[in-house]
């Protein structure tokens, strides 16, 4: 079973993602802030990171860069999400999903990362 770490500050979206992914049999762990995320990572690493860009204490793009530079995390796929649909800011990530997303499309894209 693949494990996914989600960083998302909005409670509603975080719960939605957790519900959607768990219903697809993924193991999901969620973090509301970058700080909470770093308490776990890189001691524990998942099979995929799903990161929101605008965080109260940081930025998903920076988080992604650090993950891609970290020895333990650099091979793990990173998917960014944002309500700012500026795809140009996502260099380094494996995929980008604009909010509001289509549920089926989101699941397809995540699945694609494991193909």
């Amino acid at each position: 079973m693949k494990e996914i770490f989600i960083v998302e500050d909005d409670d509603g979206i975080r719960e939605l993602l957790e519900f959607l992914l768990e219903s697809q049999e993924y193991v999901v762990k969620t973090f509301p802030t970058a700080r909470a995320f770093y308490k776990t990572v890189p001691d524990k690493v998942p099979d995929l990171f799903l990161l929101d860009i605008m965080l109260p204490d940081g930025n998903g793009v920076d988080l992604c860069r650090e993950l891609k530079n970290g020895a333990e995390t650099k091979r793990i796929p990173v998917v960014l999400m944002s309500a700012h649909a500026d795809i140009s800011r996502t260099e380094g990530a494996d995929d980008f999903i604009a909010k509001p997303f289509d549920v089926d499309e989101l699941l397809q894209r995540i699945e694609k990362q494991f193909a």
Partner: protein
Amino acid sequence: MGVEFRHLLDGSPVANYICDAEGRLTYFNKAAIKLWGRTPILGKEYWCGSWKILYEDGTPMPLEDTPIARVLKKGVEEEKSEVRIECPNGAYKYLLVFPKPLFNRNGKLEGVQCTLVDITEQKRDHIKKETLSAIVQSSDDAIISKDLQGIIASWNRGAQEIFGYSEDETVGRSITMLIPEERLNEEDVILDKIKRGIKIDHFETIRKHKSGRDIPVSITVSPVKDSGGNIVGASKVARDITARIESQAAMKKYIRNLETLNTVGKSISENLNVEGILQRVTDATTNLTGAAFGAFFYNNSDDKGNTFQLFTLSGAPREIFDHMAMPRHTDLFLPTFRDRKVVRIDDVTKHGDFGKNAPYKGMPKGHFSVVSYLAIPVISKNGAVIGGLLYGHPEAGKFTAEHELLVINIAAQAAVSLDNSKLFEQVKSLSEKKDEFIALASHELKTPLTTIKGYLQVLSKKKADNVSQLFLDKSLCQVDKLNTLVEDLLNMSRIESGQLNFNLEVFDIREMLKEIVETFSYASQSHKVTGTLWNDSVIIEGDKQRIEQAILNLMTNAIKYSPKADEIFVDLEVIGENMVVKVRDMGIGLTEEQRRQLFTRFYRAEDTQGISGLGLGLYLTKQIIDRHGGDIVVASEYGMGSEFSLILPLAVQKLKQVKAI
């Protein structure tokens, strides 16, 4: 009279005639005829053979007063006398008359013999000389004659006026006494030309007044020839051109000032940056007034008498102010900054208010010397003093009323520009705040939308009854609409702030249109979408997502504004180097006025109540297409429908490359 004597007179070149005791003309010779210009009748005319006889001054002379009449009357010989005669052809002649009484052997007066000498030539020469002399004397120009060694021979009144020397002081001395030392070689050049017979015309130079002062003059020097045609000297006419030079200089200055005013005015009105405006104004006015330094101080001090803030400086390095006290609320500065007064002082150290203010009592130590002082307030439209332009010079009396006026003019222009600049800054900052707000708001609006859309989609996958399914679909559709509105707002703000970025790629727009038409046909229940697409691929370069958005906008509008129709049409054609997408409806159409305002932001036609929208769609569509180097053309008839043609250039080069790959 003896025959021999008469013979003698006949052949004489001197005019002679004789009258008898009654004054009748009894003889005249040929020379007399020539002189008179007529032949009088012997024995019939009296005393005189001329046509008219006049006194020297031109008044007619009665015949009984003619010299001959007088001699006959008195019987004694007279001294020669001068008369003027007029010939029948109108010519005047001047004559010397020598009348001699003739006596017979008994001593009785028998007549008069008169000799006439024509002195017209000499007389005219004399008159000419006198006139010339009078002209020379009365001339305001200096008229001087000199010999070939440059020794002054004559000197008129004008010369005396211009150079200050009297005739006695100059005649016989060298002309070089008038020439400044550094110009002495000019005289050699002038004399050399004169010797070669060359005239010097209107040569502008400097000559010296008796007092040593320089006089700008224009001189004309001509060679003077003797009767044999040899050059013996020169006449020189010199005109004092001080007034002309001064007025030329004044004119030049005036023109320069105007030009500066013009350039400064233009450059400050084009400038919206405060520091740029003030530096330009300070530099230009310091230059114009000839000040040693000029500065602009902001009027931002408090009432406790603290300093005014130095903003721009010209003519002195800024460091000079670093360890120096700034102008404060003293009697010298306050009138300008508080009372909007222009202050111009020739010597500030003698000014009543100078030196009374503690702690410095005058200029602080180390202050560069200011004697001439000029201060002009820069006043805002609302009457507030924005600041003051201050000028200084270490010498006294440097600033004139003219300088004052010039700076006041520039200060007025600067005030307007500063007001504009302030407004501009305010608007800019407001607009930036608005963009920030829209970016933030759209992000915040999309966050709950994401959750709503997600759960609705999850629900619509579950097995539900038909009604629930219908409601879920309707809700999802509205969520998408809401999202589009938010997206439009965000895009508008990005366009406004120039932050709308494009991801350019080369793609086949025919493929895109096929998909769009299919999706639309499927989604739209009210209208049928009829697509007539080009029979080959149509390759363009652009932001796929945004171009799709533009076409969708046009199609959504076509449906929205043709509520009573049931069909819209989408065509794709290639015309020349462009592709054209035509979206046509049979809707309400557009009036001329509506067509003109169509692409304006937030514009919505007046009769569209009941049709929702923010009025951003066409504005965004037009912006997107414009930024791709394309255009949108509208054809419409009110009540009959509209046709929007979206034109984009083909990626001809790119197409070839794609095919080659």
